[in-house]
């Protein structure tokens, strides 16, 4: 799956979770750039991303992710 394809699907996940159609994320997006992205909704987000790409983030990975780009790196690596 290309990075572009991943982003198309990832943006859908963000829009579902935040229930807002105007969200677009990119590599350098962090939690502070998206209104309402707090530690609580983060759990929902992780779960929804795992479901969308049929992957599982382990603890080490979750702890290290700094921005959306790093999340996409992991998805790119793990997705079949």
């Amino acid at each position, binding site marked *: 799956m290309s990075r572009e394809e991943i982003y198309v699907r990832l943006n859908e*996940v963000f829009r*579902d*979770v*935040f*229930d807002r159609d105007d969200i677009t994320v990119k590599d350098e997006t962090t939690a502070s750039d998206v209104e309402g992205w707090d*530690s*609580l909704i983060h*759990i*929902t987000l992780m*779960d*929804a991303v795992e*479901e969308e790409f049929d992957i599982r983030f*382990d*603890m080490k990975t*979750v*702890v290290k992710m700094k921005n959306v780009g790093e999340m996409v790196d992991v998805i790119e690596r793990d997705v079949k």
Partner: protein
Amino acid sequence: MRELQYPFDSRYIIKKKKALKRQLLEQGDNFIDKKIAVLGGSTTHDIIMIMELFLLDNGIRPQFYECEYARYWEDVMFDNPELLDFAPDIIYIHTSNRNIRQYPLLSMTASEVGDLLEADYDHFFKLWGKMEDTYKCPIIQNNFEYPFYRLLGNADATDFHGRVNYINRLNAKFADYACEHKDFYIQDINYLSATYGLDKWSDPLYWHMYKYALAMEAVPVLAFNVCNIIKSIYGKNKKALALDLDNTLWGGIIGDDGVDGIEIGPETSMGQVYSEFQEYLKQQKDIGVILNICSKNEEENAIAGLNHPDGILKPEDFIVIKANWDPKSKNLDDTAKELNLLPEAFVFVDDNPAEREIVREQLKVISPEIGSVEDYIRIIDHSGFFEVTNLSDDDAKRNEMYKENAKRAKLEASFEDYGDYLDSLEMKGTIKNFESIYMDRIAQLSNKSNQFNLTTRRYTRNEIEQIAQADDYIDLYGKLEDKFGDNGVVSVVIGHKQEKVLHMDLWIMSCRVLKRDMEFAMMDQLVYKAKEAGIRCIRGYYYPTPKNKMVRNFYELMGFDLVNEDDRGNREWEYVIPEDYERKNHHISVNEGS
């Protein structure tokens, strides 16, 4: 909402919860408002958000209080003013095995472990006692799920040092407490986590990353389950099953295969699985679920099938049997009318997806996706339609009562004069102030009555007890017996006194005794009690809901005058008690021999 019925897609609910909430609020009307305090020993944020969805779906609009992280004990024991102010209608204590402060050590003796157990139990025992005293509201408490590892392997269950053994003992003590205390309910997460899969439920990632005691995907399962308890407490359980026959209660098609050809009974595997399902339904009857048949068949064939010698359910187990070629939506609607129930009180069970869809569309009746015959029991059971929180004697007798009603209907048809019919029933009423043995039933009735209900106020058992003790209320329950049987407590009125005026807070009656003059008997007794208390005038109130149109003019029938009506249809009525009040009931003999 279909997305929120068992079996649901947990991840979909988690992802879409904001949108789902929006839709539920848009679709719904006539919510009852309840204040729910969720006191957790771990993170509860998403639990609350998802509970909200399931509650809204059941017509309950919750307002939540959430304690600070893991402060469930301190909030209660040290009287957090915010919680006191909130004055919850229900308290949900969400604790888990992560909240057990100390487990047995291998170095401990049996008696030391016994002491530890007492101390761990005492922590909760004190909490519950304090809550009961302070909040006087229903309490729901999680028991403990099993630990996700076993140091002693299988011996963990048998050796008193084992955590499995310890949790079993603690859970038994929780259950004992629940048996001895009203308005206290255990949410059995021990069972819930087992059906879900303990390894998945207890995924340690969620504890260490987010301080959730269970995996995120299990949160909807937990929330759905606790909401079943809550909706049951507020009388929102389903009441009846409407069951298809062919390939639902037995294998095969009776019209084609004949009685000898259908599969039921011990001879074949398919016969056995249908037998187990019939057995399960027969047990439903014992907890007060009303069984009915809704089948496309010749009636003769339907009855022959139900009389199959190996069948467990017999024709007499059902109250209404509709076997004809009319649309099932019509048959179900007619059945509801005959039983004086609303269609939405039914669960429709049919193996045919097209029939399910028609009934859902036409009547807004729930019809679960029951899958293949071996799934039927699990799906109906886990759906929690009939979640038991308060098993009263009335529940066990309910089917009998509806049977008796069918006999009354037959008798009624044989009389030309309705008054003669009523006299032939030889009715005896008992109308008295609330008595302790009926408190459960009174509270249950206040939560279950929708149609004959003037104000739709709901009361917990605690509130009912307080009213019974207070001096400024007039409270009456009415029990009705006749020659066919005892209907039990069927009517409740509550009014509060303000100088010489009695304001009616509640007037309800069970629809199973409609048109029996019981409402007149209640009025007579109310007037008698009011006069005794020096009351001159009674004020009645009618607040419309989509379900209580039948009592819109009830007070007029009782001789009240309409004094006020606002633009939402809320009505206020007044009755000045005449010196020479004439009894309105002529067919029920009331309080004889007491």
